[in-house]
């Protein structure tokens, strides 16, 4: 049995189920309680779970992220929202120096089971302080896990696993996915961290991507199929841990790779993936691994400029052909 709901409602279901299941789970962030979140992810939670478990904070990102670390060290499971992933710049220390490192630096004594939900991505005409895709930043710090779901089903299954995980997990949620309605299973389910999904099988090229770009990649792949080019679309779903087995299996089948992300290209996680594939799967490759990312610019405001700054089905199709020399 399945049902059709939005990405944000699927997330809400995941959070709700975990809060019912485990009294240690609580929500903290800006506009999470009375308003029920900008995207409706926690609508009704305050009435159901009370003010101790659904907490509206002042605009103090470093402060409440630090508090989440302390509460997590005490055995609670805070689910924190940064209203935009761009705001990590003002909350960097609690996440990168504390949440990520505390386990290692205490010799394994401390556990920080928190989730940091980060709406992210471009396309909403919000300019350079509200539109970034900062995967590389989050993936850089050892100790953090990073998920980036592309659809409602994965959003729910992954957030549930993230809450149950004993490590700090960053959930990157593309804002333009929240309103997208999709089928999800009726019954309860989990999706494990570190498990990629082949969204479309193909034999000519492996297109590795995640989050919103999966949709564009699928559209590009269908269009290319009409031209006789058979693209395999691999949705990573988790960036850390990385499903290397899935990547290796696909690349060993297609021998061509394109990585698509909305990140600034320079220093991107796409670049990290490219390096790993080049280093370890060189003998499998028929052509250099290529990346299609954002430009090395600040995310622009004007719609015509912003749309130039992330991949689209047309530019993806073009990039696929470039890799295949067609």
């Amino acid at each position, binding site marked *: 049995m399945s049902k059709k709901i939005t990405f944000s409602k699927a997330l809400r279901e995941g959070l709700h189920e975990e809060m019912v299941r485990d009294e240690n789970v609580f929500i903290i962030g800006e506009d999470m309680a009375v308003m029920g979140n900008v995207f409706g992810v926690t609508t009704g939670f305050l009435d159901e779970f009370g003010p101790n478990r659904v907490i509206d904070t002042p605009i103090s990102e470093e*402060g409440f992220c*630090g508090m989440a670390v302390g509460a997590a060290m*005490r055995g609670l499971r805070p689910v924190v929202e940064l209203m935009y992933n761009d705001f990590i710049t003002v909350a960097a220390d609690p996440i990168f120096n504390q949440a990520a490192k505390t386990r290692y630096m205490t010799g394994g004594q401390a556990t920080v089971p928190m989730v940091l939900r980060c709406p992210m991505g471009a396309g909403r005409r919000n300019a350079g302080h509200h539109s970034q895709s900062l995967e590389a930043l989050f993936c850089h710090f050892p100790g953090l896990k990073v998920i980036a779901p592309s659809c409602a089903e994965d959003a729910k299954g992954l957030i549930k696993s993230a809450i149950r995980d004993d490590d700090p997990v960053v959930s990157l949620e593309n804002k333009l996915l929240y309103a997208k309605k999709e089928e999800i299973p009726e019954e309860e389910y989990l999706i494990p961290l570190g498990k990629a999904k082949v969204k479309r099988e193909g034999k000519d090229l492996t297109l590795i991507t995640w989050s919103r770009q999966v949709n564009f990649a699928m559209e590009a792949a269908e269009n290319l199929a009409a031209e006789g080019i058979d693209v395999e679309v691999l949705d990573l779903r988790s960036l850390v841990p990385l499903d290397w087995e899935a990547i290796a299996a696909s690349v060993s089948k297609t021998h061509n790779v394109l990585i698509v992300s909305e990140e600034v290209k320079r220093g991107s996680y796409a670049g990290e993936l490219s390096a790993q594939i080049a280093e370890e799967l060189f003998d499998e490759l028929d052509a250099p691994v290529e990346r299609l990312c954002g430009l090395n610019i600040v995310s622009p405001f004007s719609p015509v400029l912003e749309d130039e700054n992330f991949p689209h089905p047309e530019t993806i199709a073009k990039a696929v052909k470039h890799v295949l020399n067609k």
Partner: protein
Amino acid sequence: MATKKKTTEKYSKEQLLGFYRTMCRVREFEEHAAECFTKGMLAGNIHLSIGQEAAAAGAFAAIQPQDFFTSTHRGHGHAIARGMDPNMAMAELFGKKTGYCQGKGGSMHITDMSKANHLGANGIVGAGQGISAGSALASKIKGDNSVTVGCFGDGSTNEGTFHENLNMAATWKLPLVWFIENNCYGVSTEIHRVTNTPDLATRAAAYGVDYAVVDGTDVLAVYEAMCKAMDHARSGKGPYVLEAKVYRYQGHYCGDPAVYRPAEYMEKALANDPIEKLGKKLLAAGATEEELQKIKDEAKAEMDAAVKFADESPYPDLAEVTTDVYAMDNERCVER
């Protein structure tokens, strides 16, 4: 001589000797660490709390076993005053397997989650403010009647986390005590060159939080002020900020000659040495020089043994370089 009378009335000789012992143990730990550092036995830097012993001893005597605390880069004294094991603390300074963090944290990161409820010393100035407030939030959510004490220095009161977290803790009435040891220096910078108020705890008033300022060289004054602070926080009235005025005998780090400090600073410091100060009270209360010397000798012997333990302990196994980055799926997450 009202003070003398008050002291002898309020405290038994044994209680006073207890404070004296804690202060001597802290100082001996620090002096032993300094000697090891000078001899090149330690890796990295250490930051010593010599001169600040009354603050640690007084404050931690008021903290109950079920309570939690955070500390700073200058945190050895807090660990010793909390009753933690000097062997494991010293071994951590040496980067040894037998240290509190198995050698993965070092001097600035001594932590003990299992017994002391020590949520960690920290290398980032101000980070403990968020963590201590979060622990207090956890106590409120759990309703477990524990108080969390955030220990930090004057310098971190100028970090944004001080203001963000105090505002939230006050608004949500969290069981939190912030204990500021104001030694007047952030590395080389005298606090009043960069701060516009004579006291730091007075900032609490801006957030509707109760506060006090106490002579941090007087262990009994610190203890009494801290008891009041802990009672306040435990009774549901919200956070409390206590500032203890102390002297930092050494420079910022061990080996820093502190040339930026006027000579009068150390003159005042030595005239207010917390151990000598209590020693005089003890003698007036009937203790003998021999009793005090015995406590000092025992502390020295204990820390001699801690150095020996640390020195003879093994380094971590090289295989441990990649362990404990993650609680779950560590190997795969570390691999790529």
